[in-house]
């Protein structure tokens, strides 16, 4: 039993380490390597950067193969190869499959014009599908959320009505800031100035909120170094001291 445990451990600098400990050391080393960018570009950062880019690109290829090519193309055409062998083949996927292959025509200079068709198709498709979605989300939903009672009449409280009024004024003034075909003078100048104030207040709130979220990410890294990596360091140091 003890031999089995011993064999699963790595021996580095005379210390027997299990793979988990090696993983922790790697994490810590790469964290320091990336943080070394704070003192400027250096070979350690370069190494970590290239490692990160290389691994992420390779990982991306595997993800595309596993999550797109296999389930959305090959298993649809040949269900008997996939996890649902009793499914019917879906020959519609031949069209996107062919468009995907046409993208690869860029590697053959003589036929690289073929790749323009899938590009045109993709852009057109996303634009066409995107316009109704934008109208729904960015226009109708936002407009309806702004159309609220702005006076404390009937069952509406004055406090609520006031906040609805602020939202309405803010939205209208901000819209006038994005009015491009007239000089921002007179009434338009005043409303657009109020609009930019609304924008800046919103950005300030957003800035503070996101900075706090970033701080929590930093805290997560520091906690890793303090509570996961440092205890291992102290164990190893104590062995050396002994």
């Amino acid at each position, binding site marked *: 039993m003890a031999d089995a445990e011993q064999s699963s451990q790595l021996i580095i600098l005379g210390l027997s380490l299990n793979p988990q400990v090696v993983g922790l050391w790697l994490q810590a080393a790469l964290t320091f390597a990336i943080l070394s*960018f704070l003192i400027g570009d250096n070979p350690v950062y370069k190494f970590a950067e290239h490692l990160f880019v290389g691994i*992420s690109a390779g990982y991306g290829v595997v993800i595309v193969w596993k999550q797109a090519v296999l389930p959305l193309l090959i298993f649809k055409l040949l269900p008997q190869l996939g996890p649902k062998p009793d499914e019917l083949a879906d*020959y519609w996927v031949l069209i996107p499959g062919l468009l995907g292959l046409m993208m690869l025509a860029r590697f053959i200079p003589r036929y690289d014009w073929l790749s323009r068709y899938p*590009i045109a198709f993709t852009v057109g498709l996303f634009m066409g599908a995107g316009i109704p979605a934008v109208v729904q989300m960015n226009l*109708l939903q936002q407009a309806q959320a702004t*159309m609220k009672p702005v006076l404390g009449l009937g069952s*509406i409280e004055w406090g609520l009505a006031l906040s609805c009024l602020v939202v309405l004024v803010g939205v209208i003034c901000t819209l006038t800031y994005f009015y491009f*075909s007239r000089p921002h003078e007179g009434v338009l100048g005043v409303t657009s100035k109020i609009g930019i104030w609304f924008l800046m207040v919103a950005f300030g709130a957003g*800035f503070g909120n996101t900075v706090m979220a970033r701080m929590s990410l930093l805290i997560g890294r520091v906690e890793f170094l303090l509570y996961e990596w440092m205890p291992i360091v102290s164990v190893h140091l104590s062995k050396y001291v002994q």
Partner: protein
Amino acid sequence: MMRPVMTGFVALLLSALCCLTAAQGRFPAPTEVRMADDGEDDEGSKAIVTWQAPSVAEIDGYMLGGYEVHLQQLGGLYLGRMAFSTTRPAKEWELVALLPDVEATEIQLGDVVPWRRYLARVTAVYAPAGEALQASEDDPLKLANRDVGRSAAAMSAAPVSPAGKTYNRKRTNVLVWVLGYSAIVLLTIYLARRREIYIRPIAGLEAVNDAIGRATEMGRPILYIAGLSGIGDIATIAAMLILGHLAKRTAAYETPLLVPCQDPIVMTVQREIVREAYLEAGKPQNYEPENIFFVTDSQFGYVAAVDGIMMREKPAANFYMGYFYAEALILAETGSASGAIQIAGTDADTQLPFFITACDYTLMGEELYAASAYLSRNPLLVAQLKGQDIGKIVIIAMLLLGAAAATLGAHYVDWEFVKSFVEWFEVQR
């Protein structure tokens, strides 16, 4: 020796089969099972199965407790609406619903494949009197009851193909807006041919030419990042148009243009745009496709690489145009530290504060969309911009009317027409 054994075995099998049939026949089955398309505004992924309850609800101490609904897909070649189906089943019968409800006579199935042909069958399930049918906690399609009786399955007469609808009535308001807005833009394009349209100065775009000039004088490259969104994003399309304009200028001044990409399709489009721009500028020989290169599709992997490029290549000007996520501040901070003049433009409202603080100029939201019209002064694009402005006036008018309607509706609760005005803007699912 073998013959009596075989005979005995067959007799046993037959008797077991007879017992099973008798057991099933003991319990009355539902009648008039029908399957139909749900008829609602959907893409054809729903179907309705209806049936009539058995004539007798209690038999031999067993009470009708609920129903099991099975579907079977028929085989054939399916190409959307064009189906060449057969009567041969493509799959075994699949249990799709368990209804422990004696009153149930209908179910809407929401997970059928559009245009495929299906048959349905319904089985009545009986439980000992005084015991209710219950679905298992682990599997809602399994019964928790051990002692149950099932009727023979009653099958729908003809196969049904759930059809997707061509027009979704719930989206009428979206169609009206799209058509109305398009009409305004087309009208302004028509009218814009007669007179010149004014565009107010946009500081961030005024600075574009300064940034190109600075890079040319310093003999350093320009770095252009078109966001981290896909080609379907409007911000990415706007970024492509700005890139075209920028590339024309850099081609004329022979200033290197570096475009690291995070999306392979965006990279392909960017190469086409830059190549076209170099051709238009009369410098096709200066076009270097390797300057527009794919890095990785990992968000922070891409950021690490671009940060490295900024510190090593020391570009004189950095452009961040498009949609950005959490990497916005990391990129803009590094660019600022490298001493480059920075111009950003995004409609990502969460990232705008970071660009405003770390960049020299920032195009906010729609300023990014207006950039191509502003830079090119193309009458068609400028007219579009004017059309969008008129659209904004319409929106402001609608907002004021809507707020007035909502306020009046809160006071005069019986004024239905004012409420329906606000409700017209609702996005129905």
